[in-house]
């Protein structure tokens, strides 16, 4: 069964190569070979010329890391407080629930006036995209902590601060990490969209794709898509591996 994991993508690639090669997918659709050449050219000469692929990747990743890092920094403590204190939860839950459904991109006009064009605007959108899944997962993680663990800690001499930091936080860690995985995924999707509409700095995978479209370089467009997919996949794998290490007690 495992061989299908390798075989099925190969079949899809072959079919794609065949159909696109025969011009059956429209004249704009590049073949896999052209896409591979596109990735090579992007790496060597870059697009727009001089703006090479590693630079695009670094710019997009940097924005995601900044936005996602800030989201984690704020969302985890907030989620722990909301999970721990019904008063906090009641006060903040309505706000969270109303702001959450607003797509991060809807914030773009405001973000541009607040942070200007560039790194911080897109990082802010990523922050918004990653923030809510992390908060909600942290809250539910803390709420489902076995109350006996908290009581055991109290009878061993723990005060509130110790209960929060030494019991609730580690007990909720599996949920927190799940939230982070979802958050980084959303952040990665958001950065591409944000770069397409708001960032004109020259670097960024989303920006690169949109510029390639303007000059009808569809091999670069699909090359960009492939790179986005692979990096998204790798980030998820990285967090999964980290999770396995951090949660080896499970």
């Amino acid at each position, binding site marked *: 069964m495992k061989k299908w994991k390798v075989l099925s993508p190969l079949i899809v690639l072959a079919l794609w190569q065949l159909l696109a090669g025969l011009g059956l997918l429209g004249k704009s659709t590049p073949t896999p070979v052209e896409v591979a050449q596109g990735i090579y050219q992007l790496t060597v000469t870059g697009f727009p010329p001089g703006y090479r692929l590693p630079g695009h990747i670094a710019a997009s990743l940097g924005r995601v890391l900044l936005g996602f890092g800030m989201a984690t920094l704020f969302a985890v403590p907030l989620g722990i407080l909301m999970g721990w204190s019904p008063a906090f939860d009641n006060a903040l839950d309505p706000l969270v629930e109303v702001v959450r459904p607003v797509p991060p991109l809807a914030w773009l006009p405001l973000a541009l006036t607040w942070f200007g064009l560039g790194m911080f605007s897109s990082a802010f959108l990523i922050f918004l995209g990653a923030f809510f899944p992390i908060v909600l997962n942290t809250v539910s993680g803390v709420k489902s902590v076995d109350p006996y663990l908290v009581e055991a800690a109290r*009878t061993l*001499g723990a005060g509130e601060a110790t209960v929060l930091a030494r019991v609730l936080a580690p007990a909720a860690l599996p949920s927190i990490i799940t939230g982070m995985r979802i958050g980084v995924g959303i952040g990665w999707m958001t950065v591409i969209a944000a770069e397409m509409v708001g960032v004109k700095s020259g670097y960024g995978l989303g920006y690169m794709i949109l510029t390639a479209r303007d000059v009808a370089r569809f091999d670069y467009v699909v090359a960009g898509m492939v790179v986005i997919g692979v990096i998204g996949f790798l980030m998820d794998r990285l967090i999964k591996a980290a999770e396995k290490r951090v949660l080896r007690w499970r």
Partner: protein
Amino acid sequence: MNGNGRPALELRSLSKSFKEKKTGRTLEVLSGLDIEVRPGRLTCIVGPSGCGKTTLLRVMGGLEAPTSGEVFLGGKPVRGPGPDRGMVFQEYALFPWRTVLRNVTFGLALKGIPAREARERAEVYLGTVGLSGCEDLYPRELSGGMKQRVAIARTLAVEPSVLLMDEPFASLDAQTRNGMQEFLVDLWMRTGTTIVFVTHSVDEAVFLGQDIIGLSRRPARIVERLENTLGYPRTRTDPEFTGLRARILEYLVKEMAMERKI
């Protein structure tokens, strides 16, 4: 084991009521209990299921506040939980993300004991409960009996003046349970800790307890107080053992019968 005759733990006309969320009625769980736990002794509290035994122990531990009456520990009133009253729960309540050793050092660190000393002390207590060599295992790798021994070591390590145990062996299989009862008697004889042990099992109470307190159905009152002078280790086939067990069972059956009539 101080010899000044003052009880280790004392409950004075202690009552506890809860408000039922659905109906808004007040539910009385404990009704005017007077209990003196003598230092160094193994006291068993036995009563029918759902009579409020666990609530009673939680009040002693400070996890619940009494509605009226007071709890005194060594003459001082108890307010809230604290490391002077160690608790062992039926559910073990081990921290699953901490190794066995780090479960035991949890309370020691909170006492401000330096890491190295805490580690040494934890190792001593793990030895006391027969778990030397298990320091680096995680709770999920342990059997139920081992988990409960870790929980006991964790509690003993902070050196509480009273050890409160809430049906600690109830979720173990019968064989492990008997083993743990023998283990507890042995541990208690070695350490001399004051123990209050709550159980619904008359057999367990008679096997373990020096002082046995029998509670009525809810609201719990004290209906039986007796001293079990049988020497340790006890044999379940001993006529005195079976006699004592029969006597307590008789009152329990009466309590249950009354419940059915209501």
